[in-house]
């Protein structure tokens, strides 16, 4: 009798297993058809607000501890800031004249103004370790003006800005960012000193691959990569990374070049999404 019940439940479990596998395979093979996408978006809109609340709780708890230590520091900072204000006031008086000179010289050289953008600052609320190089979810969405494919940049500790990724999916209050290192992302870039345009491509790892760099170009490790004027997503000249490996082969027309993106060299919690004004 017991064996019978066990056999029955085992049969049922096998049937459920086959059903679940079929459903998963269907999802995989159908990819993101409109129906599947609708299901995904519906589930996402139910799930993420709860996660956002949880993330806020964690951030606020962390912020509270940080605030306590900050109060102690504030007093000391206040004294040094007063001195700085005095110095800055003097510098500010020279600033306007420098700005006027700059504008005049720009016009003189007929330098094209870079297209003006509006940054939307967002916090990263979700990042999963096993897909560290693929995606993050930020706390700004369509309601804040975020658009699909908009460029996302990060600010490094030294104050430089670097390419972080591109908006992949937009929801009402959140958005998914595909990182520069995601295999779905490729960005037209330029080897700064060599003035060579090529494509940087992610492959779900810490590094990027540079495609279409001719064998005869003299490229060295350590050279800086910036976004190319050919990019229709990123403005020209934004830092991407630096070359860490150059392999010249006897076959093919192009070199194998590996780049370490700046966005992966430090922890990043906030990013800016650039929107056209």
């Amino acid at each position, binding site marked *: 009798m017991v064996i019978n019940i066990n056999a029955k439940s085992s049969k049922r*479990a096998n049937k459920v297993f086959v059903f679940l*596998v079929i459903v998963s395979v269907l999802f995989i093979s159908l990819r993101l058809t409109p129906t599947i996408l609708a299901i995904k978006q519906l589930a*996402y809109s139910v799930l993420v607000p709860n996660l956002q609340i949880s993330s806020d709780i964690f951030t606020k708890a962390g912020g509270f501890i940080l605030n306590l230590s900050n109060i102690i520091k504030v007093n000391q900072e206040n004294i040094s800031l007063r001195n700085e204000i005095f110095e800055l006031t003097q510098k500010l008086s020279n600033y306007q004249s420098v700005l006027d000179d700059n504008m005049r010289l720009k016009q003189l050289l007929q330098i094209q103004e870079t297209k003006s953008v509006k940054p939307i600052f967002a916090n990263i609320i979700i990042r999963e370790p096993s897909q560290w190089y693929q995606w993050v979810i930020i706390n700004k969405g369509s309601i804040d003006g975020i658009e699909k494919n908009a460029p996302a940049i990060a600010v490094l500790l030294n104050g430089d800005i670097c390419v972080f990724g591109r908006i992949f999916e937009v929801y009402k209050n959140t958005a*998914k960012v595909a990182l520069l290192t995601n*295999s779905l992302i490729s960005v037209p870039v330029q080897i700064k000193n060599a003035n060579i345009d090529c494509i940087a491509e992610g492959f779900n790892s810490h590094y990027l691959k540079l495609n279409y760099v001719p064998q005869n170009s003299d490229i060295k490790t350590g050279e800086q990569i910036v976004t190319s004027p050919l990019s229709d997503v990123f403005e020209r000249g934004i830092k991407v990374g630096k070359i860490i490996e150059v392999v010249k082969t006897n076959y093919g027309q192009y070199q194998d070049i590996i780049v370490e993106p700046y966005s992966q060299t*430090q922890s990043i919690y906030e990013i800016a999404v650039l929107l056209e004004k």
Partner: protein
Amino acid sequence: MIKLIISIIIYLILIVIQFIIPKYVPLNLWLLYPNFILMFVIYLALNKGVMKGQITGFFYGLTWDILSTDIFGVRALSFTIAGYLAGNFNRKFNKNQPLTQIIVMGIGLIVTYFVLNVVYIIMPLSDTIYIPTFELSHLVILNILVNLILTPVIFKIFIFIDEKIS
């Protein structure tokens, strides 16, 4: 009803642990962050049987797919298979033995990596040539080792919570 509420709470806690806390993990240590979701699926399968293991695996995997930019359904498939296989060890071995837990978790991890790689090779996400994870073997092995070492500890926590709830 109470069981459902408890399941939802556990679900939310696990999702927070897996997806929100990692952003605070130092940059060089993220690789050592364990896969708590897979551990929970394996724990449930090993202790409660195939049915609970595979269904939990499917829904947690689907959640992962919803949040990720990966191929939709790939984690649901791999966690369902891991849950099913782990569930088959239920009642066959002493599930309270750390060695059993480590072996079953190891099988779950290998199955997950294998299924993910097979799907990526058969149906690549982009035009980029997929570099299978086996090429990054030292990273994968390190991650598997961390997960295996932590398995008995995390299982103890799961057992403790399970007993409190019951």
